[in-house]
Protein backbone atom coordinates (compact mmCIF):
# COMPACT_ATOMS: atom_id res chain seq x y z
CA UNK A 1 0.00 0.00 0.00
CA UNK A 2 1.28 3.46 -0.88
CA UNK A 3 2.08 5.52 2.17
CA UNK A 4 2.47 9.25 2.63
CA UNK A 5 4.02 10.59 5.85
CA UNK A 6 3.42 7.11 7.27
CA UNK A 7 -0.31 7.27 6.51
CA UNK A 8 -2.03 5.12 3.86
CA UNK A 9 -2.67 7.41 0.90
CA UNK A 10 -6.33 6.35 0.75
CA UNK A 11 -6.94 7.58 4.28
CA UNK A 12 -4.98 10.74 3.56
CA UNK A 13 -6.94 11.61 0.41
CA UNK A 14 -10.21 10.53 2.00
CA UNK A 15 -9.77 13.02 4.84
CA UNK A 16 -8.63 15.66 2.41
CA UNK A 17 -11.90 15.17 0.52
CA UNK A 18 -13.94 15.40 3.71
CA UNK A 19 -12.02 18.58 4.50
CA UNK A 20 -12.71 19.98 1.04
CA UNK A 21 -16.44 19.25 1.37
CA UNK A 22 -16.63 20.87 4.79
CA UNK A 23 -14.58 23.73 3.35
CA UNK A 24 -17.13 24.12 0.54
CA UNK A 25 -19.86 24.75 3.10
CA UNK A 26 -17.64 27.02 5.19
CA UNK A 27 -16.85 29.05 2.05
CA UNK A 28 -20.49 29.41 0.93
CA UNK A 29 -21.70 30.33 4.41
CA UNK A 30 -18.88 32.73 5.27
CA UNK A 31 -19.35 34.38 1.87
CA UNK A 32 -22.95 35.25 2.77
CA UNK A 33 -21.92 36.41 6.23
CA UNK A 34 -19.15 38.59 4.78
CA UNK A 35 -21.47 40.27 2.26
CA UNK A 36 -24.07 40.97 4.94
CA UNK A 37 -21.52 42.21 7.47
CA UNK A 38 -19.74 44.37 4.88
CA UNK A 39 -22.82 46.33 3.87
CA UNK A 40 -25.25 46.05 6.81
CA UNK A 41 -22.64 45.96 9.62
CA UNK A 42 -24.82 43.25 11.11
CA UNK A 43 -23.24 40.05 12.42
CA UNK A 44 -25.89 37.67 11.17
CA UNK A 45 -26.19 35.09 13.92
CA UNK A 46 -29.24 33.69 12.11
CA UNK A 47 -27.04 32.48 9.24
CA UNK A 48 -26.76 28.94 10.62
CA UNK A 49 -30.52 28.85 11.16
CA UNK A 50 -31.06 30.00 7.56
CA UNK A 51 -28.79 27.18 6.38
CA UNK A 52 -30.87 24.75 8.46
CA UNK A 53 -34.01 26.36 7.02
CA UNK A 54 -32.67 25.63 3.52
CA UNK A 55 -32.13 21.96 4.32
CA UNK A 56 -35.60 21.69 5.88
CA UNK A 57 -37.24 23.56 3.02
CA UNK A 58 -35.78 20.94 0.65
CA UNK A 59 -36.82 18.11 2.96
CA UNK A 60 -40.39 19.41 3.32
CA UNK A 61 -40.75 20.15 -0.39
CA UNK A 62 -39.86 16.50 -0.97
CA UNK A 63 -41.95 14.86 1.74
CA UNK A 64 -45.03 17.10 1.50
CA UNK A 65 -45.14 17.96 -2.20
CA UNK A 66 -42.92 15.37 -3.82
CA UNK A 67 -40.72 18.10 -5.27
CA UNK A 68 -37.29 16.62 -5.86
CA UNK A 69 -33.72 17.79 -5.53
CA UNK A 70 -33.23 19.66 -8.81
CA UNK A 71 -36.25 21.99 -8.60
CA UNK A 72 -35.41 22.47 -4.91
CA UNK A 73 -31.97 23.70 -5.85
CA UNK A 74 -33.73 26.73 -7.40
CA UNK A 75 -36.78 26.96 -5.09
CA UNK A 76 -35.03 26.67 -1.74
CA UNK A 77 -32.66 29.65 -2.15
CA UNK A 78 -35.65 31.69 -3.36
CA UNK A 79 -37.78 30.69 -0.36
CA UNK A 80 -35.04 31.34 2.20
CA UNK A 81 -34.05 34.53 0.32
CA UNK A 82 -37.62 35.89 0.44
CA UNK A 83 -37.82 35.10 4.15
CA UNK A 84 -34.57 37.07 4.47
CA UNK A 85 -36.08 40.04 2.59
CA UNK A 86 -39.04 40.07 4.96
CA UNK A 87 -36.80 39.83 8.04
CA UNK A 88 -34.65 42.76 6.87
CA UNK A 89 -37.54 44.91 5.74
CA UNK A 90 -39.71 44.57 8.82
CA UNK A 91 -37.23 43.96 11.63
CA UNK A 92 -33.54 44.38 10.94
CA UNK A 93 -33.90 47.70 9.10
CA UNK A 94 -35.41 49.24 12.23
CA UNK A 95 -32.24 48.50 14.17
CA UNK A 96 -29.69 50.33 11.98
CA UNK A 97 -30.10 53.57 13.88
CA UNK A 98 -29.26 51.97 17.23
CA UNK A 99 -26.12 50.23 18.52
CA UNK A 100 -24.92 47.36 16.24
CA UNK A 101 -25.25 45.08 19.25
CA UNK A 102 -29.04 45.11 18.76
CA UNK A 103 -28.71 43.62 15.27
CA UNK A 104 -26.52 40.87 16.68
CA UNK A 105 -28.93 40.17 19.54
CA UNK A 106 -31.91 40.18 17.20
CA UNK A 107 -30.40 37.69 14.75
CA UNK A 108 -29.19 35.54 17.65
CA UNK A 109 -32.70 35.49 19.08
CA UNK A 110 -34.15 34.75 15.66
CA UNK A 111 -31.80 31.77 15.30
CA UNK A 112 -32.95 30.40 18.67
CA UNK A 113 -36.62 30.84 17.73
CA UNK A 114 -36.20 29.14 14.33
CA UNK A 115 -34.25 26.25 15.83
CA UNK A 116 -36.79 25.94 18.62
CA UNK A 117 -39.69 25.72 16.18
CA UNK A 118 -38.04 22.95 14.15
CA UNK A 119 -36.96 21.09 17.29
CA UNK A 120 -40.54 21.16 18.52
CA UNK A 121 -41.98 19.71 15.33
CA UNK A 122 -39.18 17.45 14.13
CA UNK A 123 -37.12 16.54 17.21
CA UNK A 124 -33.34 16.61 17.31
CA UNK A 125 -32.69 13.37 15.45
CA UNK A 126 -31.73 13.89 11.83
CA UNK A 127 -33.95 13.17 8.88
CA UNK A 128 -32.31 11.55 5.85
CA UNK A 129 -32.53 13.28 2.47
CA UNK A 130 -31.94 10.92 -0.47
CA UNK A 131 -29.10 11.60 -2.87
CA UNK A 132 -30.54 12.45 -6.30
CA UNK A 133 -30.35 9.49 -8.73
CA UNK A 134 -28.16 11.34 -11.19
CA UNK A 135 -25.49 11.91 -8.55
CA UNK A 136 -25.71 8.68 -6.55
CA UNK A 137 -23.03 6.05 -6.50
CA UNK A 138 -19.37 6.73 -6.85
CA UNK A 139 -16.41 6.44 -9.08
CA UNK A 140 -13.03 4.84 -8.53
CA UNK A 141 -10.30 7.39 -9.18
CA UNK A 142 -7.64 4.66 -8.95
CA UNK A 143 -6.16 6.03 -5.75
CA UNK A 144 -9.47 6.48 -3.95
CA UNK A 145 -13.24 6.04 -4.17
CA UNK A 146 -15.12 9.31 -4.80
CA UNK A 147 -18.84 9.47 -4.01
CA UNK A 148 -20.20 11.47 -6.97
CA UNK A 149 -22.50 13.64 -4.86
CA UNK A 150 -19.56 14.87 -2.78
CA UNK A 151 -17.64 15.77 -5.89
CA UNK A 152 -20.72 17.68 -7.05
CA UNK A 153 -20.88 19.64 -3.78
CA UNK A 154 -17.30 20.81 -4.26
CA UNK A 155 -17.92 21.81 -7.90
CA UNK A 156 -21.25 23.51 -7.11
CA UNK A 157 -19.81 25.53 -4.24
CA UNK A 158 -16.89 26.64 -6.39
CA UNK A 159 -19.33 27.77 -9.10
CA UNK A 160 -21.45 29.64 -6.55
CA UNK A 161 -18.48 31.31 -4.85
CA UNK A 162 -16.80 32.37 -8.10
CA UNK A 163 -20.14 33.50 -9.54
CA UNK A 164 -20.96 35.66 -6.52
CA UNK A 165 -17.45 37.07 -6.45
CA UNK A 166 -17.63 38.00 -10.14
CA UNK A 167 -21.05 39.55 -9.66
CA UNK A 168 -19.63 41.75 -6.91
CA UNK A 169 -16.44 42.67 -8.76
CA UNK A 170 -17.72 43.08 -12.31
CA UNK A 171 -21.34 44.25 -12.33
CA UNK A 172 -23.01 47.58 -11.74
CA UNK A 173 -24.98 46.20 -8.79
CA UNK A 174 -21.69 44.90 -7.40
CA UNK A 175 -20.16 48.38 -7.76
CA UNK A 176 -23.09 49.84 -5.79
CA UNK A 177 -22.52 47.17 -3.14
CA UNK A 178 -18.78 47.86 -2.87
CA UNK A 179 -19.27 51.63 -2.79
CA UNK A 180 -22.09 51.43 -0.24
CA UNK A 181 -19.94 49.16 1.92
CA UNK A 182 -17.38 52.00 2.05
CA UNK A 183 -19.72 54.97 2.44
CA UNK A 184 -23.47 54.20 2.37
CA UNK A 185 -24.63 57.78 3.06
CA UNK A 186 -22.70 59.27 0.16
CA UNK A 187 -23.89 56.58 -2.26
CA UNK A 188 -27.43 57.33 -1.14
CA UNK A 189 -26.84 61.07 -1.61
CA UNK A 190 -25.86 60.23 -5.21
CA UNK A 191 -29.38 58.90 -5.72
CA UNK A 192 -28.91 55.16 -5.16
CA UNK A 193 -31.70 53.56 -3.14
CA UNK A 194 -29.41 52.22 -0.42
CA UNK A 195 -32.20 51.00 1.90
CA UNK A 196 -33.39 48.76 -0.95
CA UNK A 197 -29.81 47.64 -1.56
CA UNK A 198 -29.53 46.62 2.11
CA UNK A 199 -32.75 44.61 1.87
CA UNK A 200 -31.60 42.85 -1.31
CA UNK A 201 -28.19 42.11 0.18
CA UNK A 202 -29.68 40.46 3.24
CA UNK A 203 -32.02 38.50 0.97
CA UNK A 204 -29.13 37.32 -1.22
CA UNK A 205 -26.99 36.44 1.81
CA UNK A 206 -29.87 34.44 3.30
CA UNK A 207 -30.52 32.77 -0.06
CA UNK A 208 -26.88 31.67 -0.19
CA UNK A 209 -27.26 30.08 3.26
CA UNK A 210 -30.41 28.34 2.01
CA UNK A 211 -28.57 27.05 -1.06
CA UNK A 212 -25.79 25.69 1.15
CA UNK A 213 -28.52 24.02 3.22
CA UNK A 214 -30.12 22.14 0.34
CA UNK A 215 -26.68 21.13 -0.99
CA UNK A 216 -25.86 19.81 2.48
CA UNK A 217 -29.10 17.87 2.91
CA UNK A 218 -27.94 14.64 1.19
CA UNK A 219 -24.49 14.80 2.84
CA UNK A 220 -25.42 15.51 6.44
CA UNK A 221 -28.68 14.68 8.14
CA UNK A 222 -31.43 17.31 7.97
CA UNK A 223 -31.62 18.34 11.60
CA UNK A 224 -32.67 21.45 13.54
CA UNK A 225 -29.20 21.67 15.07
CA UNK A 226 -27.19 21.36 11.86
CA UNK A 227 -26.81 25.14 11.64
CA UNK A 228 -25.59 25.83 15.13
CA UNK A 229 -23.03 23.03 14.78
CA UNK A 230 -21.55 24.76 11.78
CA UNK A 231 -21.99 28.46 12.42
CA UNK A 232 -19.33 28.80 15.13
CA UNK A 233 -16.67 27.45 12.76
CA UNK A 234 -17.98 29.73 10.02
CA UNK A 235 -17.58 32.76 12.29
CA UNK A 236 -13.98 31.69 12.88
CA UNK A 237 -13.55 31.51 9.08
CA UNK A 238 -14.87 35.06 8.67
CA UNK A 239 -12.56 36.35 11.39
CA UNK A 240 -9.51 34.61 9.88
CA UNK A 241 -10.40 35.86 6.40
CA UNK A 242 -11.00 39.41 7.60
CA UNK A 243 -14.43 40.78 8.51
CA UNK A 244 -16.26 41.84 5.38
CA UNK A 245 -13.61 40.60 2.92
CA UNK A 246 -15.42 38.63 0.20
CA UNK A 247 -12.37 36.94 -1.28
CA UNK A 248 -10.99 36.33 2.21
CA UNK A 249 -14.17 34.52 3.25
CA UNK A 250 -14.10 32.21 0.21
CA UNK A 251 -10.40 31.33 0.25
CA UNK A 252 -10.27 30.93 4.03
CA UNK A 253 -13.35 28.70 3.95
CA UNK A 254 -11.62 26.14 1.74
CA UNK A 255 -8.25 26.45 3.49
CA UNK A 256 -9.70 25.89 6.96
CA UNK A 257 -11.78 22.97 5.72
CA UNK A 258 -8.63 21.36 4.34
CA UNK A 259 -6.67 22.18 7.51
CA UNK A 260 -9.37 20.41 9.52
CA UNK A 261 -9.20 17.37 7.20
CA UNK A 262 -5.42 17.17 7.43
CA UNK A 263 -5.51 17.42 11.21
CA UNK A 264 -7.88 14.44 11.27
CA UNK A 265 -5.19 12.43 9.50
CA UNK A 266 -2.24 13.37 11.66
CA UNK A 267 -3.70 14.20 15.05
CA UNK A 268 -7.43 13.48 15.14
CA UNK A 269 -7.80 14.71 18.74
CA UNK A 270 -7.10 18.28 17.60
CA UNK A 271 -9.36 18.29 14.55
CA UNK A 272 -12.24 20.09 16.23
CA UNK A 273 -10.08 22.86 17.68
CA UNK A 274 -7.57 23.42 14.87
CA UNK A 275 -9.77 26.10 13.27
CA UNK A 276 -9.84 28.07 16.51
CA UNK A 277 -6.10 27.66 17.06
CA UNK A 278 -5.54 29.10 13.58
CA UNK A 279 -7.96 31.89 14.40
CA UNK A 280 -6.07 32.75 17.60
CA UNK A 281 -2.73 32.78 15.76
CA UNK A 282 -4.05 34.94 12.93
CA UNK A 283 -5.61 37.39 15.38
CA UNK A 284 -2.26 37.71 17.17
CA UNK A 285 -0.27 38.25 13.98
CA UNK A 286 -2.80 40.07 11.79
CA UNK A 287 -5.74 41.39 13.84
CA UNK A 288 -7.62 42.50 10.70
CA UNK A 289 -7.54 38.95 9.29
CA UNK A 290 -5.61 37.47 6.36
CA UNK A 291 -7.42 39.52 3.71
CA UNK A 292 -8.75 42.39 5.83
CA UNK A 293 -7.61 45.99 5.64
CA UNK A 294 -6.36 47.57 8.87
CA UNK A 295 -8.88 50.06 10.19
CA UNK A 296 -11.49 48.99 7.63
Amino acid at each position, binding site marked *: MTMIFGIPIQAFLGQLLVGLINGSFYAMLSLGLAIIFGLLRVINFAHGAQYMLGAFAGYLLLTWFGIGYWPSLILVPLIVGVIGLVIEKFALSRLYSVDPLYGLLFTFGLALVLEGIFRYYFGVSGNPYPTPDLLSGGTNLGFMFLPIYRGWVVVASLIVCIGVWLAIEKT*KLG*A*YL*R*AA*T*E*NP*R*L*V*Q*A*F*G*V*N*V*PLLLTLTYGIGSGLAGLAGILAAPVYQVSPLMGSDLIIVVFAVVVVGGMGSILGAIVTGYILGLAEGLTKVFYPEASSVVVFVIMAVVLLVRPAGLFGREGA
Partner: protein
Amino acid sequence: MNRPNALLSVADLHAWYGESHALHGVSLDILPGETVTLVGRNGVGKTTTLRAIIGLIRKRTGTIQFDGKDLMRLPLHRTAHTGIGFVPEERGIFASLTVEENLMLPPVVAPGGMGLKEIFDLFPNLHERRNSQGTRLSGGEQQMLAMARMLRTGVKLLLLDEPTEGLAPVIVQRIGEVLAELKARGMTILLVEQNFRFASRIADRFFLMDHGRVTADFPAGELETRMDLLHQVLGV
Protein backbone atom coordinates in the same frame (compact mmCIF):
# COMPACT_ATOMS: atom_id res chain seq x y z
CA MET B 1 -36.69 87.65 0.86
CA ASN B 2 -35.93 85.07 -1.79
CA ARG B 3 -36.47 85.80 -5.46
CA PRO B 4 -39.48 84.02 -7.03
CA ASN B 5 -37.59 82.78 -10.10
CA ALA B 6 -34.83 81.11 -8.04
CA LEU B 7 -33.79 77.54 -8.90
CA LEU B 8 -32.82 76.84 -5.29
CA SER B 9 -34.50 78.67 -2.49
CA VAL B 10 -33.54 78.08 1.15
CA ALA B 11 -35.34 79.86 3.96
CA ASP B 12 -34.87 79.81 7.72
CA LEU B 13 -32.86 76.57 7.59
CA HIS B 14 -31.86 75.17 10.97
CA ALA B 15 -29.75 72.04 11.34
CA TRP B 16 -28.35 70.00 14.19
CA TYR B 17 -25.48 67.54 14.64
CA GLY B 18 -26.96 65.48 17.44
CA GLU B 19 -27.63 68.06 20.17
CA SER B 20 -25.38 70.69 18.62
CA HIS B 21 -27.33 73.41 16.84
CA ALA B 22 -25.18 74.18 13.76
CA LEU B 23 -27.39 76.29 11.47
CA HIS B 24 -29.51 79.10 12.90
CA GLY B 25 -31.86 80.10 10.09
CA VAL B 26 -29.89 80.15 6.83
CA SER B 27 -31.65 81.85 3.91
CA LEU B 28 -30.24 82.00 0.41
CA ASP B 29 -31.33 81.61 -3.19
CA ILE B 30 -29.70 80.87 -6.52
CA LEU B 31 -31.01 81.78 -9.97
CA PRO B 32 -30.70 79.28 -12.82
CA GLY B 33 -27.19 79.41 -14.30
CA GLU B 34 -25.76 81.44 -11.43
CA THR B 35 -22.51 80.62 -9.65
CA VAL B 36 -22.81 81.46 -5.98
CA THR B 37 -20.11 81.24 -3.34
CA LEU B 38 -20.61 80.82 0.38
CA VAL B 39 -17.81 82.53 2.24
CA GLY B 40 -17.07 82.74 5.94
CA ARG B 41 -14.57 81.63 8.54
CA ASN B 42 -14.06 77.98 9.53
CA GLY B 43 -16.94 76.49 11.44
CA VAL B 44 -19.64 79.03 10.56
CA GLY B 45 -21.79 76.36 8.84
CA LYS B 46 -20.86 76.48 5.13
CA THR B 47 -20.32 72.73 4.75
CA THR B 48 -23.29 72.08 7.02
CA THR B 49 -25.47 74.18 4.71
CA LEU B 50 -24.52 72.03 1.70
CA ARG B 51 -25.03 68.80 3.64
CA ALA B 52 -28.42 69.96 4.89
CA ILE B 53 -29.53 70.89 1.35
CA ILE B 54 -28.56 67.51 -0.16
CA GLY B 55 -30.15 65.82 2.86
CA LEU B 56 -27.13 64.18 4.48
CA ILE B 57 -28.14 65.98 7.65
CA ARG B 58 -31.63 64.80 8.51
CA LYS B 59 -32.16 66.84 11.67
CA ARG B 60 -33.20 70.07 9.97
CA THR B 61 -36.12 72.50 9.85
CA GLY B 62 -37.10 75.33 7.53
CA THR B 63 -37.78 75.20 3.81
CA ILE B 64 -35.65 74.06 0.88
CA GLN B 65 -37.31 74.43 -2.53
CA PHE B 66 -35.49 73.19 -5.62
CA ASP B 67 -36.94 73.49 -9.10
CA GLY B 68 -40.42 73.70 -7.59
CA LYS B 69 -39.97 70.65 -5.35
CA ASP B 70 -39.95 70.56 -1.57
CA LEU B 71 -36.69 68.82 -0.62
CA MET B 72 -37.56 68.62 3.08
CA ARG B 73 -40.02 65.80 2.42
CA LEU B 74 -37.74 63.64 0.26
CA PRO B 75 -35.71 60.67 1.49
CA LEU B 76 -31.96 61.06 0.91
CA HIS B 77 -31.81 58.94 -2.25
CA ARG B 78 -34.65 60.89 -3.93
CA THR B 79 -32.97 64.28 -3.54
CA ALA B 80 -30.33 63.68 -6.24
CA HIS B 81 -33.10 62.71 -8.66
CA THR B 82 -34.52 66.23 -8.48
CA GLY B 83 -31.28 67.28 -10.22
CA ILE B 84 -28.71 68.09 -7.53
CA GLY B 85 -25.14 66.77 -7.62
CA PHE B 86 -22.90 66.80 -4.54
CA VAL B 87 -19.09 66.95 -4.49
CA PRO B 88 -18.06 66.49 -0.85
CA GLU B 89 -15.08 68.15 0.78
CA GLU B 90 -13.35 64.78 1.31
CA ARG B 91 -14.13 64.01 -2.36
CA GLY B 92 -15.67 60.63 -1.60
CA ILE B 93 -13.68 58.55 -4.10
CA PHE B 94 -14.24 54.84 -3.47
CA ALA B 95 -11.13 52.72 -2.94
CA SER B 96 -12.80 49.47 -3.95
CA LEU B 97 -13.90 50.90 -7.32
CA THR B 98 -11.81 51.69 -10.38
CA VAL B 99 -11.70 55.23 -11.75
CA GLU B 100 -14.24 54.31 -14.41
CA GLU B 101 -16.51 52.55 -11.89
CA ASN B 102 -16.32 55.67 -9.68
CA LEU B 103 -17.25 57.75 -12.70
CA MET B 104 -20.21 55.53 -13.61
CA LEU B 105 -21.49 55.13 -10.03
CA PRO B 106 -24.01 57.98 -9.61
CA PRO B 107 -27.24 57.17 -11.45
CA VAL B 108 -28.29 59.42 -14.34
CA VAL B 109 -31.12 61.57 -12.97
CA ALA B 110 -32.07 63.63 -16.04
CA PRO B 111 -31.29 63.77 -19.74
CA GLY B 112 -28.69 66.28 -20.90
CA GLY B 113 -25.69 65.01 -18.94
CA MET B 114 -22.31 64.68 -20.61
CA GLY B 115 -21.36 61.49 -22.40
CA LEU B 116 -18.36 59.47 -21.31
CA LYS B 117 -16.36 60.69 -24.31
CA GLU B 118 -17.08 64.33 -23.57
CA ILE B 119 -16.02 63.82 -19.97
CA PHE B 120 -12.78 62.13 -20.96
CA ASP B 121 -12.10 65.02 -23.41
CA LEU B 122 -12.51 67.45 -20.53
CA PHE B 123 -10.43 65.27 -18.15
CA PRO B 124 -7.84 63.39 -20.25
CA ASN B 125 -6.02 62.17 -17.11
CA LEU B 126 -9.06 60.21 -16.01
CA HIS B 127 -9.18 58.40 -19.34
CA GLU B 128 -5.54 57.42 -19.03
CA ARG B 129 -6.08 56.03 -15.55
CA ARG B 130 -9.61 54.69 -15.93
CA ASN B 131 -8.63 51.18 -14.79
CA SER B 132 -6.67 52.31 -11.72
CA GLN B 133 -8.05 52.02 -8.22
CA GLY B 134 -9.95 55.24 -7.48
CA THR B 135 -7.89 56.26 -4.48
CA ARG B 136 -4.58 55.73 -6.32
CA LEU B 137 -5.18 59.04 -8.11
CA SER B 138 -3.46 62.20 -6.93
CA GLY B 139 -5.48 64.66 -4.87
CA GLY B 140 -6.09 66.85 -7.90
CA GLU B 141 -7.17 63.93 -10.07
CA GLN B 142 -9.50 62.73 -7.31
CA GLN B 143 -11.10 66.18 -7.22
CA MET B 144 -11.51 66.08 -11.02
CA LEU B 145 -13.09 62.62 -10.72
CA ALA B 146 -15.44 63.77 -7.95
CA MET B 147 -16.65 66.59 -10.21
CA ALA B 148 -16.63 64.57 -13.43
CA ARG B 149 -18.90 61.85 -12.08
CA MET B 150 -21.60 64.44 -11.38
CA LEU B 151 -21.49 65.76 -14.95
CA ARG B 152 -22.71 62.44 -16.39
CA THR B 153 -25.89 62.53 -14.37
CA GLY B 154 -27.66 65.52 -15.94
CA VAL B 155 -27.94 67.48 -12.69
CA LYS B 156 -28.85 71.18 -12.89
CA LEU B 157 -27.24 72.25 -9.62
CA LEU B 158 -23.78 71.33 -8.40
CA LEU B 159 -22.93 71.62 -4.69
CA LEU B 160 -19.14 71.92 -4.49
CA ASP B 161 -17.43 71.83 -1.10
CA GLU B 162 -13.92 73.32 -1.09
CA PRO B 163 -12.79 71.92 -4.46
CA THR B 164 -9.34 73.57 -4.29
CA GLU B 165 -8.44 72.56 -0.73
CA GLY B 166 -4.89 71.27 -0.45
CA LEU B 167 -4.19 71.36 -4.19
CA ALA B 168 -1.25 72.83 -6.11
CA PRO B 169 -1.80 76.20 -7.89
CA VAL B 170 -1.66 74.63 -11.35
CA ILE B 171 -4.45 72.19 -10.40
CA VAL B 172 -6.47 74.98 -8.83
CA GLN B 173 -6.23 76.85 -12.11
CA ARG B 174 -7.41 73.75 -13.99
CA ILE B 175 -10.42 73.41 -11.68
CA GLY B 176 -11.18 77.08 -12.32
CA GLU B 177 -11.19 76.37 -16.07
CA VAL B 178 -13.50 73.41 -15.62
CA LEU B 179 -15.92 75.47 -13.55
CA ALA B 180 -15.87 78.23 -16.19
CA GLU B 181 -16.67 75.59 -18.83
CA LEU B 182 -19.57 74.24 -16.74
CA LYS B 183 -20.85 77.75 -16.20
CA ALA B 184 -20.74 78.37 -19.96
CA ARG B 185 -22.87 75.26 -20.40
CA GLY B 186 -25.48 76.73 -18.07
CA MET B 187 -24.74 74.75 -14.89
CA THR B 188 -25.88 76.34 -11.63
CA ILE B 189 -23.18 76.11 -8.97
CA LEU B 190 -23.20 76.55 -5.20
CA LEU B 191 -19.60 76.72 -4.10
CA VAL B 192 -18.07 76.68 -0.64
CA GLU B 193 -14.55 78.01 -0.89
CA GLN B 194 -11.85 79.21 1.51
CA ASN B 195 -9.66 80.35 -1.39
CA PHE B 196 -11.21 83.76 -1.77
CA ARG B 197 -9.07 84.77 -4.79
CA PHE B 198 -10.23 81.63 -6.60
CA ALA B 199 -13.86 82.22 -5.69
CA SER B 200 -13.79 85.89 -6.70
CA ARG B 201 -12.81 84.95 -10.28
CA ILE B 202 -15.83 82.75 -10.98
CA ALA B 203 -18.65 83.74 -8.63
CA ASP B 204 -21.61 85.86 -9.76
CA ARG B 205 -22.78 86.36 -6.23
CA PHE B 206 -21.54 85.98 -2.65
CA PHE B 207 -23.27 84.93 0.53
CA LEU B 208 -21.36 85.74 3.68
CA MET B 209 -21.97 83.39 6.60
CA ASP B 210 -21.35 83.87 10.29
CA HIS B 211 -22.55 81.90 13.32
CA GLY B 212 -24.79 79.59 11.33
CA ARG B 213 -26.63 82.21 9.31
CA VAL B 214 -26.19 84.34 6.20
CA THR B 215 -25.23 87.84 7.29
CA ALA B 216 -24.78 89.55 3.91
CA ASP B 217 -25.18 88.89 0.23
CA PHE B 218 -24.07 90.92 -2.76
CA PRO B 219 -23.32 90.48 -6.47
CA ALA B 220 -19.75 90.08 -7.69
CA GLY B 221 -19.84 93.64 -9.06
CA GLU B 222 -20.00 95.06 -5.51
CA LEU B 223 -16.97 93.10 -4.39
CA GLU B 224 -14.68 96.17 -4.44
CA THR B 225 -16.93 98.20 -2.18
CA ARG B 226 -17.44 95.26 0.18
CA MET B 227 -13.77 94.43 0.68
CA ASP B 228 -13.64 96.23 4.04
CA LEU B 229 -16.46 94.09 5.40
CA LEU B 230 -14.87 90.91 4.02
CA HIS B 231 -11.48 91.76 5.53
CA GLN B 232 -13.13 92.37 8.83
CA VAL B 233 -15.19 89.14 8.84
CA LEU B 234 -12.82 86.76 7.10
CA GLY B 235 -9.52 88.22 8.14
CA VAL B 236 -8.18 87.89 4.58
